[in-house]
């Protein structure tokens, strides 16, 4: 029978645009040490290490082997997973399966990126097909801009609506000491920031960040000894469809979110996620996604996203706060970002989110985004699943 599995501890670096004082292994070590302190464990207690980042941002091959100096994986099972932007969520999902399977009792899961070490857009472009797409593609930003244009065209949303999402997340980010950006922006600040690719402006976009996140997964029986409030994994779902960018036809809605959320809510028996879910940490690399993808997630009907945002439903204090940590618009060390989302939900469930704590969180969801408009979702609960 599957073993119930929980996140019992988390550790994050203080994410910054550049960490000149540490190399990649030392950045990883910082997060790992903090997670061990949070769990009151030592590296000897850890049975295995899984780690992920995106290779071409640091230009290091076989990172599972290279990272041993910082990850603590010496003479332990060590493995690397990578799936682009969704890497962090892929790692969290792997953390769940590896422990629930009985093969590990206490597993250390690490996501990291030092985006300052390369030109991020130049690096991300290498994800495209080298023959048909790469010679002409214009980076992740252009793809997102095309999606926003299609949504604007179909549902009449405006850059001002998008700015409201950005203002929300920047405000939330001010409560998060780990956030890379902590700017209390106004709608006008966002609208007047330089346009990168129509209709996206600078403050609609996420920054480039150096950061690492380490999370410890443990099985039932051990999790309860490590923490009084394990964040139990209730369900996971992901879709990484479309091998070719030319297939990503549905530009005004995120098809992978539609499919993954349908599976996740089905597994949880939830008909109305807006009512049942207490907090969401969404991998939302740009403001427009904050309106579009919550529709695809089933929080409201298509085209109603902007209204939900303007009504404050997703603000702190609203019915369903989204991105209390400030989210990806405040912090984006790409390989760690999906795992930071899971870690932040664990902090919410454990009541350890300090100034960004949403009161009485019973059910939280973290997501991952990346690749050819892929989506990963994980649901965490305070109550141990039956």
């Amino acid at each position, binding site marked *: 029978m599957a073993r119930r599995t929980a996140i019992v501890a988390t550790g994050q670096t203080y994410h910054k645009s550049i960490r000149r004082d540490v190399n990649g292994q030392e950045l990883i070590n910082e997060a790992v040490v903090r997670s061990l302190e949070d769990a009151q464990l030592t590296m000897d207690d850890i049975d295995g290490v899984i780690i992920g980042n995106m290779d071409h941002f640091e*230009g290091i091959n076989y990172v599972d082997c290279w990272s041993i100096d910082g990850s603590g994986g010496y003479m332990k099972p060590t493995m690397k997973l990578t799936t682009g932007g969704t890497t962090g969520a892929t790692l969290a999902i792997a953390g769940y399966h590896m422990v629930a399977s009985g093969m590990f009792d206490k597993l250390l899961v690490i996501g990291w990126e030092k985006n300052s070490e390369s030109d991020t857009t*130049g690096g991300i*472009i290498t994800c495209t097909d080298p*023959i048909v797409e790469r010679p*002409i593609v*214009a980076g992740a930003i252009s793809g997102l801009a095309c999606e926003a244009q299609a949504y604007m065209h179909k549902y009449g949303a405006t850059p001002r609506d998008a700015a409201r999402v950005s203002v929300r997340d920047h405000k939330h980010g001010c409560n998060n000491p780990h956030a890379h950006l902590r700017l209390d922006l106004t709608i006008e600040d966002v609208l007047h920031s330089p346009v990168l690719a129509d209709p996206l402006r600078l403050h609609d976009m996420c920054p480039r960040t150096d950061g690492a996140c380490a999370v410890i997964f443990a099985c039932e029986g051990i999790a309860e000894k490590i923490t009084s409030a394990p964040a139990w994994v209730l369900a996971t779902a992901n879709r990484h469809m479309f091998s070719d960018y030319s297939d990503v*036809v549905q530009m005004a809605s995120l098809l992978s979110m539609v499919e993954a959320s349908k599976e996740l809510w089905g597994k949880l028996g939830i008909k109305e996620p807006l009512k049942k879910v207490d907090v969401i940490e969404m991998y939302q690399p740009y403001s427009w996604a904050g309106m579009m993808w919550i529709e695809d997630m089933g929080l409201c009907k298509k085209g109603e996203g902007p209204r939900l945002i303007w009504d404050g439903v997703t603000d702190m204090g609203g019915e369903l706060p989204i991105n209390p940590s400030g989210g990806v618009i405040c912090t984006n060390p790409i390989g760690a970002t999906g795992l930071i989302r899971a870690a932040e939900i664990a902090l919410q469930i454990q009541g350890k989110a300090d100034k960004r704590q949403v009161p009485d969180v019973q059910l939280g969801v973290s997501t991952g985004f990346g690749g050819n408009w892929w989506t990963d979702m994980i649901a965490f609960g305070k109550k141990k699943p039956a």
Partner: protein
Amino acid sequence: MPEKKTDLLTIHSALDAEQPFRWSAGRYRSRFMQEIRDHKRFYGIKCPKCGKVYVPPKRVCGPCFVEMDEPVEVGPEGEIMTFTILRFSFVDPETGVAKPVPYAYGAVKFDGADTQLSHFIEYEDESKLRIGGRVRAVFQEDRKGSIKDIRAFKLIE
């Protein structure tokens, strides 16, 4: 720790450092690009199960997980499904140099195709660019069997 605070070192990759590759386009994309190079024509491939026409063509229809075979000529005209105008320059990993801006980039669905080929869109007047706009490919004079044989798509007035 070090007595005097030296400024922290950064190790730079050599200027000419690069990883060379020789990627095979594969049978389906090779034929696609030869048709563009030799006849300025566009070909997709049709799924026997769901009827979807993929441009560029490939071996397997993802949703149906079946092998495809039937070539279908598409275009020459198409429709802008979505687009953007790039105003921010970045390093192009092919050349290691920043690409000059502004330029338009968008997804074009050929008449008869079900997927969309993304490419540059050339324009004189920015305001004329819109979703649904009708376009036609403009070709390089000297074509070499690369996706860049299409110089860009241009709006049909």
